[in-house]
């Protein structure tokens, strides 16, 4: 690839100069949950692969995922799924040009936090009840 003639130009000030706000934190959390889910999907597929592989390999992987630590990580994974989905729904609303006034933005940020915890717990209760 040809090296483009890049000059050292000043970059616009980044995160460090702003006072932390809820909406800004939500934006960062959206990105972090997205990246966590990126690698979480590899674990999910590893689990499926072990079931396709053999009894002994499945027992090894399920032993890890079924442990208290594995279930804690799974809780984090499912919470991140729900949080990222709710955050994404806010973005879909913003894509239509709606929901930009400060009161609504603040309200939606709070609803995303509360909703992500409540929905995740509901999914766990429903899944355990159906076992």
């Amino acid at each position, binding site marked *: 690839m040809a090296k483009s003639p890049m000059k050292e130009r000043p970059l616009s000030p980044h995160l460090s100069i702003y006072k932390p706000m809820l909406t800004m934190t939500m934006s960062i959390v959206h990105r972090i949950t997205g990246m966590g889910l*990126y690698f979480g999907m590899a674990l999910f597929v590893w689990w499926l692969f072990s079931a396709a592989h053999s009894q002994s390999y*499945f027992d090894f992987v399920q032993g890890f995922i079924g442990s208290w630590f594995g279930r804690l990580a799974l809780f984090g994974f499912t919470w991140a799924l729900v949080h990222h*989905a709710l955050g994404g729904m806010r973005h879909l609303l913003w894509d239509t040009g709606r929901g930009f006034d400060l009161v609504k933005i603040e309200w939606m940020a709070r609803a995303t936090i509360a909703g992500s915890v409540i929905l*995740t717990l509901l999914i766990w209760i429903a899944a355990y009840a159906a076992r």
Partner: protein
Amino acid sequence: MSMRTPLSKVRGLGSAKSGTEHFWHQRLTAIANIPLVIFLAWFCVSKVGADRAEMAEALANPLVALMLVFTIISITWHMRLGMQVVIEDYIHGEGSKLICLLGNTFFSLAVALTGLFAVLKISFGG
């Protein structure tokens, strides 16, 4: 005064020729993912700690297997697009950026194909 040619203006693709598609696929998969992640979370929690026969029984149901196929395709496509944006935002060196973008594609494809193969193999009878 614009330096762009009339043909370039009519095409309306900009200089990269592909930004709209990235944006659109991100939204398309985002919408698809809303019900799919609920299913995914429910599936994982309901099968955590289950034995292999239970997994096989669940995936023998074609609806469950199909939902997993949809989920894996939509999520891996979405996560590749998302990680691409993160890489483009934070990796500034041209060489390292290219390597990360390649790695992103390989990783996402590997996750997708491994997941699909596993689901189909179990679903078709182990």
